[in-house]
């Protein structure tokens, strides 16, 4: 069991990181911490993907110095997926930060529970 986990060290670490990330995202009440949790969660998946595509001893899949045989490079698809994922995560972080700014300007707190209470109080 432990040996298996050690052999797949990157995957083990990334799953642990993923769990840390989503726990922060769901349980922390502070919006900024939630956003950090989101980023940890996404980064864990990129580690997972990148480690899956890596073949030790080979180079990044960019054709240089005229070497064209596939055996010289690592699997390019996971790297491509990671790049796409990073773009998505950046845009989501941006949107969440924008929402946080709006909420903070309105309610002067970052705690989501307090914000919900204050919003409810606006009705009365």
């Amino acid at each position, binding site marked *: 069991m432990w040996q298996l986990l050690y052999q797949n060290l990157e995957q083990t670490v990334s799953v642990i990181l993923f769990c840390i990330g989503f726990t922060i*995202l769901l349980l922390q009440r502070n919006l900024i911490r939630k956003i950090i949790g989101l980023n940890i969660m996404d980064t864990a998946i990129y580690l997972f993907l990148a480690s899956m595509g890596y073949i030790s001893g080979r180079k990044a899949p960019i054709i240089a110095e005229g070497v064209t045989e596939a055996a010289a490079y690592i699997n390019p698809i*996971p790297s491509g997926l990671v790049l796409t994922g990073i773009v998505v995560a950046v845009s989501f972080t941006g949107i969440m930060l924008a929402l946080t700014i709006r909420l903070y300007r309105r309610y002067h707190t970052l705690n989501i529970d307090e914000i919900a209470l204050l919003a409810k109080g606006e009705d009365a």
Partner: protein
Amino acid sequence: MTLTQNFPFFSIILCMIAGIVTSILKPKAAKALTFFVSGSVVVLSVLTLSLTLRLDSAYPYMMGHFPSPWGNEIRIGRLEALMATGFSVVLCLSLIGGLRHSPAFVSEKKVNLYCIMVDLALAAVLVLIYTNDLFTVYVFIEILTIASCALVVVRQNGHTLVAITRYMIMHLFGSGLLLLGISMLYGITGHLLMEPLGEAVRAIVDTGEYAGPLTVVIALITAGLAIKSAMFPFHSWAPDTYAYAPPLSSAILSGIISKTYIFVLIKFYYRVVGMDVIISQNISPFLFVCGVSGMILASVMAISQRDIRRMIAYSSVAQIGYIYMGLGIGTTAGVEAALFQMLVHSVVKSLLFLATYELINVSGDRKRFRYLHGAGYRNVPAGIVFTVAAMSMVGIPFTGGFIVKLNLAISGMVFGGWMRSLVLIALAISTLLNGVYFLHTVVSIYRRPPGDIAYPPAEKIPPYALVALFASMLLIIYLGIGSEPILRVIQTGLMTFS
């Protein structure tokens, strides 16, 4: 290759180009372009549907220059074309009926930004319906999430901000699970296109190697998409978002976008994993239990609401429960009923949100039931369409909702013993509960208004909006009395789906 075969691609690219162009247009032109795009997508989808009905099987359509196991492609079959047609018709009618209210929730200068999001959402919905590639699914689910976030948050109001923050947190969590699931699936199979993936998964099931990871993958992707489509225990984001979003956005979100996620899930089950594996891995009983508890508990919560829009939002969660119950039954008949429910509910729910807004409007923007008394007289057309939509929700014959419940009951009949009774009893209880809150609402909009409340003078609904509302209403009745051809398309489409 005929020209018609390109139409799904054209409709996707048309929406995307329109989304880009709209950003530099004046508000009026932006609205006109959005109407034009949604209308053209309806026409293109109908033509695609008629083409696929002539063909025996679905055909793949290569996107880019790399052939099948490496490149990206979309797949066009009957079921996809039917869903695209249904959703684009609903979007088109909702836009005609609802975009005229835009001054109430977005400043005139920013209407074009709202239109961009509608175009992008439509593009993402179409891609998710047609795509054959799992990573494209992930990317466009994220685009759809961003677009729907923007559709909601245009209304600058404390409740909306809080609701959308909750929405985003739950959806980002769902996306994370989905992405992890897709990455693990890629790790154990080495494919992202659905056909090679399906073969690889079958090999995994046959040999038994990586059986554990496969179960984890199925669970992750199911949970991710269930959160995003507001399946019952994960529905916490839905009521607030639907209730505080602008009416048109609620109609699009609950009518079209949440159904798209379920369609992706059905696609994953049928085309990648295979329904037999879903049943043998005990995923479908889980969906069944969630669906049934959603049908009943969400209805109970709907009864306790004082705000009409929150009530309709909870009823949305209950109706999603019907879809998951159909999926959870696991037979072909159950999935067919679920697919038909997706079409019916998308028409009914978008109409309900728009009609409710009209009723609230003539009651001085007050959403409590007490103030809605007599709203059916102050705005006669909205009252009529609301009543018909509510009847479909309850499942009165000659409306779409009746056919859904009938088909669900029939699909439950294949089981013996307690499972059959469970399906029938759940349907009976939820119908009763639906009856309680929808008929209560219909009665209350036709009650004599209390004398001490002053109502604003009724504004005239322009003819084009009336046409849209009544067209949706007729569509509901058509789904109730002329459902045979549509059910047949779903049946034959599902046969060629896997």
